[in-house]
């Protein structure tokens, strides 16, 4: 499903080159729930963004479903992201002006399936995440756990094949973290979505099928 080959990414800060990824190799099978664990600055977020097509690698290859992202133009990468990838962020990244329902429906609108997605499909995700009573609230009126559940609903409403989660429990307390992680696990089982989760917390990583460790832009094992 996800194939990463000798991936390198160098950021240029002024006149200084800062290598974030130094030849990463990684393979994730369809339906697998993989955690990438490592300390801050080890390149795990960069790896997630490159896999998600948000930024291009300096060298190396990323193949999603056999498609090499390097062969795609920016517009094509956007299209692929729209169809196949859902992002979950540590800071939730909900649009503050929209209600919870608006944030979830926005994903369907961008994917062009708002009219096609039946309300029952959207409802099943909303029910599963326990958001039915919070739909009319704006993000500012929701707790951190609720906001992250809305963000998950937004990420999965179009049934993307791949979920990329960047520290999804980083801003949550233990209780809400457990709720969110169990939901990710349930989504993985129920919809067979491939999940790649980044965390610096080894305890969080235990919810996944497999743990990949990263240090200084390298994958230590996979």
């Amino acid at each position, binding site marked *: 499903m996800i194939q990463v080959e000798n991936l390198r990414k160098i950021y240029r800060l002024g006149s200084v080159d800062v290598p974030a990824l130094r030849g990463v190799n990684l393979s994730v099978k369809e339906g697998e729930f993989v955690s990438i664990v490592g300390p801050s600055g080890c390149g795990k977020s960069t790896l997630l*963004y490159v896999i998600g097509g*948000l930024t291009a690698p300096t060298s190396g290859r990323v193949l999603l479903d056999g498609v090499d992202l390097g062969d795609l133009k920016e517009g094509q990468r*956007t*299209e692929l*992201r*729209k169809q196949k*990838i859902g992002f979950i962020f540590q800071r939730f990244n909900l649009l503050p*002006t929209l209600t919870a329902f*608006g944030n979830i429906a926005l994903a369907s609108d961008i994917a062009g399936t*708002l009219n096609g997605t039946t309300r029952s499909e959207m409802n099943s995700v909303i029910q599963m995440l326990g958001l039915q009573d919070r739909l009319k609230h704006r993000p500012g009126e929701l707790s951190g756990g609720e906001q992250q559940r809305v963000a998950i609903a937004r990420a999965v409403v179009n049934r993307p094949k791949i979920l990329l989660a960047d520290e999804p429990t980083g801003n949550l307390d233990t209780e809400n973290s457990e709720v969110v992680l169990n939901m990710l696990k349930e989504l993985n089982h129920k919809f067979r979505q491939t999940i790649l989760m980044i965390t610096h917390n080894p305890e969080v990583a235990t919810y996944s099928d497999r743990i990949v460790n990263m240090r200084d832009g390298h994958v230590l094992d996979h």
Partner: protein
Amino acid sequence: MVNRMVFANLVTRPVRTLVAVMAIAVEVVLILMVVGLTSGLLEEVAKRTQGVGADIMVQPQTTSLFMGFTGAPMPIQIQDRLAQVPQVEAVAPVMLQMSTASGVSLIYGIDTESFDQVTGGFRYLEGRGLEQPDEVLVDDIFAHSQGLHAGDDLELLNHPLRLAGIVEHGKGARIFMKIDALQDMMGSVGKASVFFVKLSDPDHTGNVLAQFREILPNYQLRDMREYLSLMTSSNIPGLGNFINVMIGLAISIGLLVIFISIYSTVVERTREIGILKSMGASKKYIVNLVLRETTLLTILGIGTGIGLSYLVRSLIVHTFPTMTILLTGEWMLRASLIALATSLLGASYPALKATRQDAIQALAYE
């Protein structure tokens, strides 16, 4: 969904929305007021001039359509030469003089007998006709604006005068006095600015004009039926340029404010744009979002601008009853299209900037 997001953005940032709407409204008001004031003035002058009831107007060659800008260079003896032409029923010499005593007003110096023959005579609402050199007549609108009544004293052209009567408006000017008195005041004895000619049969206007051309080859001879259509800004030297400059100024204001408003919105919403990009929103989707928001702001601004224009017109006309402001559907449409084009132009760069933002940097934006 995009509309919901656009609406939510406008509601969530009420001050920014209000500033942008008011900027567009000011643009629309400026355009409508400048055009409305000039066209209103022109139409009002034209209608009053037509209201004299003449069939032909004789003026010096170099005179402006907008009467009053010319002095009194024509010898009054022309009256007798014109009166001898068959079909001519009456010829009224009129001397024109601008007064700035109570706003800008046109004074007609008239020979009461011939002017009554051409116009059919005044309808007096108060007082009587002109008898003495120091007397004036004013129309009801001017009298109302100045709170004047028959018998009142007033000062015009630095001369103390007395109001003999108030007449119904619509016969050329708002202020009338005897032509010889005005000639004396202005040092133009024996001169006239214009001759109004009444024919026994208006169908002979063409023939009479042809004969006038033989007698007065170097004068401007106008068929009064064409006069109203000629009173447009394009026929008044410099006026078209003035209107274009003012419209340009209005456009500049609208363009700058919309640019700043949308640009600041895009900067403020950098993170949101990053979120949209991470969700797979295309450039087209983001540009559409920004331009729809601009269009909605513009529509609100246009509506507010048209409403404000009516309000401003009411205030101006209430304060200065002699002024006419013409708000036409045609210019409302033009002003709306100008405002819309200006806004979309002003928003296009910020919209493109939004699409070019790096998604990762945008997501990290605080």
